[in-house]
C-alpha cells in the first residue's frame, strides 16, 4: 500500500521492466484473491446478480482485483517540476506478468483446497462450490490456464486506462459506476418509478438484476452525459464550488431546496422495506451529525458515543413504557424534553472528567464510559430499573394526529426521523461559523494557542460534548419509539465505531459529507444490526468498515466530501513540502522507500 516508488526520471531506465514491482503487485493481488475466496466473500456475493446472467457481485469483486492491480502497476508518482517518463509497452508487459502471477497464486490455492478437503474443519468457508467459482467453472486443472489468463487480460485492461485522456477516463468511470449503482439500487428504482413501470421493466429482468442490453444502455448514456457535461456548469448547482460567496450561497440554497423536495416526495414513493432502510439511514445521519460536532468541529475523538444514544433510548423507554419501573407514564412529546436534559447531563458527566486529557487518552476513556453504561444497563444489579438483558418492552410510538406512530407505520415514522435530521443539520450549520464554532476550530488546531488568545477551552469542549450528546439522544428517542423494545445489545461499541466510520468516510467537519457517508454506508452496506441494500454484505460489513477506516486514514483522511478547512489541516505537511519544493525546485520524497 505504501509502495509509492519514485521512478527515476533518467531516460535510460525507461524501458526497464521492474521485476520486484511485478512480483510484489502480482503477489498482493493473488493473495487478495485468495483472501476473498477463503473468507467466503466470493461465494456469498455470487448470490447477488448485478447483470443477468453474466455478472454477479462476487465476480465483479474477483475481476476488480486484477484491474486495480494493473492500474496501480502502471501508476507513476507525479511530482511537480519533474517530467514523468513516457509510457511504453513495458508497462503493459508488467501488468500482464503481474496478472499471471496473481492468477497462478489463486489457481494454486484452488488446487490446494481441492486436494485437502480436511481443511474445511478449520476453515469452514473452503467449500467445493468456492473452488468451482474461483476457477470460473473450468475445474482445478484448467484453472492453472484460465485464471492467469483472465487476470493477465484484466490487468492489461487496468494498465491501459492510463493511456486514455482525462475526460474519457472519467466518462468510462462514471459509466461503470452508474451501471453498478443502477444494479444495486434496483429496489429503489422499482419503488420510485412505480407510476412509470416502463422504465424498471426496460432496465431489469423479470427475475431481478439488470439486463445485458439495459446495462449497456445505462453505461453509454452515463458516459455520454459525463463527456457532454465536462467543463460545463450544471445550471443552478454549478456554483457550489465557486469562489464567489454570493454564487456559492445561491447554489447552496438551490441544492437545499432540491434536497428538501426529494426528502418530502421520496418516502411517499418508497415501500415499507425501503422506508425502514431510510429511517435507519436517518438515525445514523443524526448520530453522525452529533459525532461530527465532537470529532469534526472540536477535534475530540469520542469512541463511546453510543452511550448518549443509549441514554436517549433508555430514558425515552422508561418514561413512556407502561412496563417501566417509573410510577408515571408520559407520552413521547412530553418525555422528549426530559430525554434531552438527561442526555445533556450525561454529556456533562462524561465530558467533565476527560476535559483536560490528552486526545488519545480521551478516546479510550470515552470508550470505557460507553462500555460501562452498556454493562450497567445489562446488569442484574440494575435490572429492576433497566430490565437487565430483557430490556424495556412495549414502548409506545409517537402520538401524532390521534394515532401512535411507531415502527409499524414506517412510512409516517420516516418523516419524523427526517424532520429531526433537518433540525440537526440546521443546528450544525448555524454552529459551524458561530462564535463557539470558531472556538472549536481553534481548539482543534492548537489548544494551547486557543487558550492563550482567550478561548474558554473547558466551556467550549463541554459544550461540544453536550451538543453531540443531545443530537445522539434525538436518535435514541426515535429509535425507542421505532423498535418498541430497548435492550443493551443495541448499544455495543461497534455502533460507536460505525458512526465514526460514517463521519470519517463522509468527511470530518462537513454536514453534506456526513449525510453522504450515512447514505452510502448505512444505506448500501447496512448498519450494525440493520441490513442495507446489499444484504449479502451482512457478515462482511465490519470487515469492510475496518478496511475502509484504514484506507481513508492512509489515502484520504479528509473524507470523500472534505470540509475545506479540515483538509488543509490534515495536509499541512504536504503544503509545507510543496512550498519548499517551489523554492528549491527539486523533490525530496518523504515517502521514498529505503
Amino acid at each position, binding site marked *: *500500500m*505504501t509502495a509509492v516508488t519514485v521512478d527515476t526520471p533518467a531516460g535510460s531506465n525507461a524501458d526497464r521492466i521492474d521485476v520486484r514491482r511485478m512480483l510484489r503487485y502480482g503477489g498482493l493481488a493473488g493473495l487478495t484473491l485468495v483472501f476473498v475466496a477463503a473468507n*467466503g*466473500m466470493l461465494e456469498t456475493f455470487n448470490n447477488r446478480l448485478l447483470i443477468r446472467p453474466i455478472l454477479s457481485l462476487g465476480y465483479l469483486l474477483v475481476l476488480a482485483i486484477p484491474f486495480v492491480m494493473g492500474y496501480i502497476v502502471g501508476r507513476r508518482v507525479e511530482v511537480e517540476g519533474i517530467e514523468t517518463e513516457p509510457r511504453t509497452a513495458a508497462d503493459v508487459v508488467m501488468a500482464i506478468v503481474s496478472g499471471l502471477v496473481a492468477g497462478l497464486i489463486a489457481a494454486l490455492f484452488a488446487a490446494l483446497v481441492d486436494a485437502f478437503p480436511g481443511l474445511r474443519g*478449520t*476453515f*469452514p*468457508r473452503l467449500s467445493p462450490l468456492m473452488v468451482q467459482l474461483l476457477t470460473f467453472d473450468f475445474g482445478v486443472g484448467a484453472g492453472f490456464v484460465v485464471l492467469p489468463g483472465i487476470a493477465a487480460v484484466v490487468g492489461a485492461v487496468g494498465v491501459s486506462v492510463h493511456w486514455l485522456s482525462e475526460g474519457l477516463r472519467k466518462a468510462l468511470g462514471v459509466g461503470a459506476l452508474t451501471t453498478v449503482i443502477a444494479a444495486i439500487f434496483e429496489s429503489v428504482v422499482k419503488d420510485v418509478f412505480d407510476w412509470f413501470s416502463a422504465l424498471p421493466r426496460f432496465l431489469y429482468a423479470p427475475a431481478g438484476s439488470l439486463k445485458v442490453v439495459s446495462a449497456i444502455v445505462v453505461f453509454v448514456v452515463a458516459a455520454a452525459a459525463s463527456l457532454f457535461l465536462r467543463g460545463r456548469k450544471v445550471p443552478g448547482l454549478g456554483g457550489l464550488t465557486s469562489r464567489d460567496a454570493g454564487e456559492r450561497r445561491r447554489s447552496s440554497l438551490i441544492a437545499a431546496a432540491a434536497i428538501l423536495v426529494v426528502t418530502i416526495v421520496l418516502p411517499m414513493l418508497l415501500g415499507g422495506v425501503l422506508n425502514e432502510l431510510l429511517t435507519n439511514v436517518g438515525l445514523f445521519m443524526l448520530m453522525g451529525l452529533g459525532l461530527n460536532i465532537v470529532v469534526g468541529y472540536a*477535534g475530540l*475523538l469520542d*469512541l463511546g458515543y453510543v452511550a448518549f444514544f443509549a441514554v436517549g433510548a433508555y430514558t425515552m423507554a422508561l418514561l413512556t413504557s407502561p412496563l417501566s419501573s417509573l410510577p408515571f407514564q408520559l407520552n413521547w412529546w412530553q418525555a422528549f424534553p426530559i430525554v434531552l436534559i438527561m442526555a445533556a447531563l450525561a454529556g456533562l458527566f462524561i465530558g*467533565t*472528567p476527560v*476535559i*483536560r*486529557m*490528552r*486526545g*488519545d*487518552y480521551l*478516546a*479510550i*476513556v470515552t*470508550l*470505557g*464510559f460507553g*462500555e*460501562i453504561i452498556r*454493562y*450497567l444497563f*445489562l*446488569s*442484574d*444489579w440494575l435490572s429492576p430499573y433497566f430490565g437487565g438483558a430483557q430490556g424495556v418492552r412495549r414502548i409506545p410510538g409517537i402520538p401524532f394526529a390521534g394515532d401512535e406512530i411507531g415502527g409499524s407505520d414506517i412510512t409516517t415514522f420516516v418523516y419524523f426521523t427526517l424532520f429531526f435530521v433537518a433540525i440537526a443539520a440546521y443546528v450544525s450549520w448555524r454552529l459551524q461559523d458561530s462564535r463557539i464554532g470558531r472556538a472549536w476550530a481553534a481548539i482543534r488546531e492548537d*489548544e*494551547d494557542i486557543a*487558550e492563550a488568545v482567550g478561548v474558554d477551552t*473547558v466551556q467550549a469542549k463541554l459544550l461540544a460534548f453536550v451538543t453531540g450528546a443531545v443530537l445522539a439522544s434525538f436518535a435514541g428517542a426515535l429509535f425507542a419509539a421505532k423498535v418498541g423494545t430497548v435492550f443493551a445489545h443495541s448499544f455495543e461499541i*461497534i455502533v460507536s*465505531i460505525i458512526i*465514526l*466510520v460514517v463521519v*470519517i468516510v463522509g468527511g470530518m467537519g462537513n454536514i453534506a459529507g456526513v449525510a453522504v457517508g450515512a447514505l452510502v454506508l448505512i444505506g448500501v452496506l447496512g448498519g450494525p444490526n440493520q441490513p442495507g441494500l446489499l444484504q449479502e454484505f451482512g*457478515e*462482511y460489513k*465490519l*470487515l469492510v*468498515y*475496518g478496511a*475502509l*477506516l*484504514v*484506507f481513508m*486514514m*492512509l489515502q484520504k483522511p479528509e473524507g470523500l466530501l472534505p470540509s475545506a478547512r479540515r483538509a488543509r489541516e*490534515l495536509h499541512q*505537511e504536504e503544503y509545507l513540502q510543496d512550498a519548499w519544493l517551489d523554492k528549491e525546485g527539486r523533490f525530496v520524497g*518523504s*515517502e521514498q522507500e*529505503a
Partner: protein
Amino acid sequence: MATTAETSARIRKSFRPSWVDIFLWAIRIGAILVIALGLIGSIRNFAAGRGLTATQWRDLLTAALSQGAMYGLLALGYSMVYGVLGFINFAHGEVFMSGAMVGFIAANWLFEAGVWDANPILSLVVVLLVAMVTSTLVAILVERVAYRKLRNAPRLIPLITSIGVSFFIQYTFASLFGVAVRTYPQAPEMFRGSLNIGGFRMPWASVLVIIVAILSMIGLWYFVTRTKAGQAMRAVAEDKEIAALMGIDVDRTIVTVFAVGGAMAGVAALMWALLFRGVNFFTGFLPGIKAFTSAVLGGIGNLVGAMGGGVLLGLFEGVGPLLILGGLGVPGVSQLKDVVAFTALVLVLVFRPSGLFGERLGSEDRV
C-alpha cells in the same frame, strides 16, 4: 500538550478551584468512599462467616495473579509502541488474538496426532512458538501496511487507523475461521493438578503462566538493556531524528519494537489458552483494553511498570468485584467484572495518566 495543560491547570487551581476541579474531587472522594465501604462490608461478612472462605479467596488471588501476568505481557506491547511512536496501538489485542487462534490450530492438530498427551512439554513449546510467530508476523505486517506511512501524522490519525486495523483483523478471523468459540484441548495430563508449596496450593496452569511471564520478562530486560538492538530501541524512543543521525536505522528499529511486542503477545496467547482455553475472533478486545489500562497504570513507556501494572490490574479485577461490590451487597457481581475493569481504566486515565511508576516517553511525546 499535556504538560502545558497540566501547568496551566495548576496555575488556575492556585487562584480558585474551577467547578471541573470540584467535580473531579467529588469523583475521587466518591470512589474512595465506595472502596472503603465495600472493604468494611467484606471484612464484616468474612468475620461473620458469610461470603467466601479463606480458601476461596486464596484461589481467587492466584487466578487473579496469573491473569495479571498475562495482562502485563500484553501491556508491554502497548507500552513499547507508545514509548517509541507515541500512539495507542489499538490493534495489539488483535495481534494477541491471532496468536491464540492460530495456536489453537496447532494445538488441535497435535491433539489429534496424539502428541499432546504423549509429549506435553514439546506440545506446549510448539504451540508457544506457533503463537509467537503468528503474533509477531501480524504485528510486523500491520506496522508495514498501516502505520509506517503515518509516522508524522497528527496523533489521532494513527489511533483511528489502528481501530480500523483492529476491526479488520477481528472480522478477517471471523470470516476465515467462523465466529464459534474454539476450545483448546484440555491441558496435558501432567499440568492438570495443583502444585503444593508448603500447604499453599496453586493450579499448575497458574504456576506455568507465572513462570513463563517471569522468564519472558527476564528475556525482554536482557534484550532491551544489553543488546545493540535494544539500545537502538531506547535511542529511537528518546528521539527519532537524533537516533537517525547517530546511524541507527529507525525503520528497522521500529519493526523490532513491533516484533518484540508481538512476540510477547504470542506468549500471552499461550497463557490465555492455559487459563481459559476458549478462543474466538473477539477474544482480543477486552484483554487488549485491560492491558492498555495496565500499561498506563504502570506508566506508559515504562516496561517494568507495564508488568507491575498488569499484575495490579489483574488483582484488582479478580478480587475487586467480590471484595468491594460484594461488600456493598450488590447482586450479580461476576457480571460486573468488566465494569470494574473499565472503571479502573477511567479512574487511572483521569487521575493518574502518568502512571504509578512514572512515564518514560521520548522528548517529542512529552510535550
